[in-house]
């Protein structure tokens, strides 16, 4: 499936924006996101008036093994840790021109992730960015009402992160087998 090159004018206009060919997405630096978004909504820049989907993706830090050649010609395996990242993904469509999707990504570090809210540009981001804030812990600068949305206010942690560990005895329902039975054996649960 080949999509038209909707991204090219963006790359020309904003040199800091990168194009990720594998994911078919524009990687937009957070500080530029607002400007890019506003530019994209203009009728002669594609009229991307409809932001359909906003979500987050969590990439854990991972070890990459790379072969490199030593000056003396022998090969060496270098283990390098690639830093993880959190991505905020926006799927844009144009209702006016019936085109899309154009994928926009804000990539932020996993530690203290801060993206820029595109809610002022596309209202549809409002609840979805709140959801990303809630489930991934990405804070959005410029969001009018950034609160937890699906989890309750007192909840700690961000469950959609890949390294989220479920608390031990959190709201579990006893079922008769598996780890529950195991807990039962250890005397934690009484099964009628």
């Amino acid at each position, binding site marked *: 499936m080949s999509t038209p090159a909707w991204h090219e004018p963006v790359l020309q206009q904003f040199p800091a924006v990168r194009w990720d060919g594998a994911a078919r997405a524009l990687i937009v630096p957070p500080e530029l996101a607002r400007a890019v978004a506003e530019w994209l909504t203009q009728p002669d820049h594609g009229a991307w008036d409809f932001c359909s989907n906003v979500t987050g993706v969590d990439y854990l830090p991972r070890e990459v093994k790379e072969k490199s050649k030593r000056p003396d010609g022998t090969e060496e395996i270098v283990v390098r840790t690639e830093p993880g990242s959190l991505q905020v993904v926006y799927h844009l469509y144009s209702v006016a021109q019936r085109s899309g999707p154009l994928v926009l990504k804000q990539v932020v570090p996993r530690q203290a992730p801060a993206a820029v809210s595109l809610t002022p540009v596309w209202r549809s981001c409002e609840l979805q960015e709140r959801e990303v804030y809630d489930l991934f812990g990405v804070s959005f600068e410029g969001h009018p009402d950034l609160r937890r949305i699906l989890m309750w206010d007192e909840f700690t942690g961000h469950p959609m992160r890949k390294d989220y560990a479920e608390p031990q005895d959190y709201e579990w329902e006893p079922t008769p*087998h598996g780890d529950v039975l195991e807990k039962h054996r250890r005397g934690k649960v009484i099964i009628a």
Partner: protein
Amino acid sequence: MRLLGFGILKGMAVTLENFVRSYFDRDRRHHLFTKEYAWEPGAPAEVLPARADTTVTAHSRNFPILLHDGADPMGGIRCVACQICERECPPQCIYIEKDYDEQGKYIKRPAIFDIDLSVCMSCQICVEVCPFDAIVMDSQFELSTANRFGGLLQHRDQLLKSNEYYHRIHPEEARARDDRMAQEKAEKEAKQAAADAAKKKAAEAKAAAEIAAEKSKPEPSAPTAGGAA
């Protein structure tokens, strides 16, 4: 411009029509749609009810059961405890342990096969992934129990139902499954037979070649009965 209330009168005509005609709706298809009792025949006649006293049709699915061939449940159990369904079950409600004989050798059947009906969501993924046609969906829904946890945990012996029972509840599906199994079996047998025949042929050819070689040799020796293989 009409007087206020004409649209209301129009609507009232509809409700009055429904009210009056509900007393004359003999076949209960439109104006008296609700059945007085759940077990009143109401489903279209083309859809076979599985039991005379329920509205469960021959297509309804509810919870999985294990099938066995023949009269002896454990003798004819189809499940070989391969644990594919356990792995694939979306809500993880199946629990299987393999059975071993005294020597610790795996005999192809489950020692424990539990399905937790309080967790099962009747999606029939287990039926689809089973390579042995051992698990199918039941249409029994009267499963209430006083014991919330233990009572809804169905064990192997509760789950085992005969193939005849399956034919009774889902005749069409059961027939199709049996046909397919028979076909697969026939294919397998044909393949096996073909393989056997090929093997036999090869052996015969080998024996013939040996005999021929013997004949050409001057001193006779005891030929091994290769043809018997």
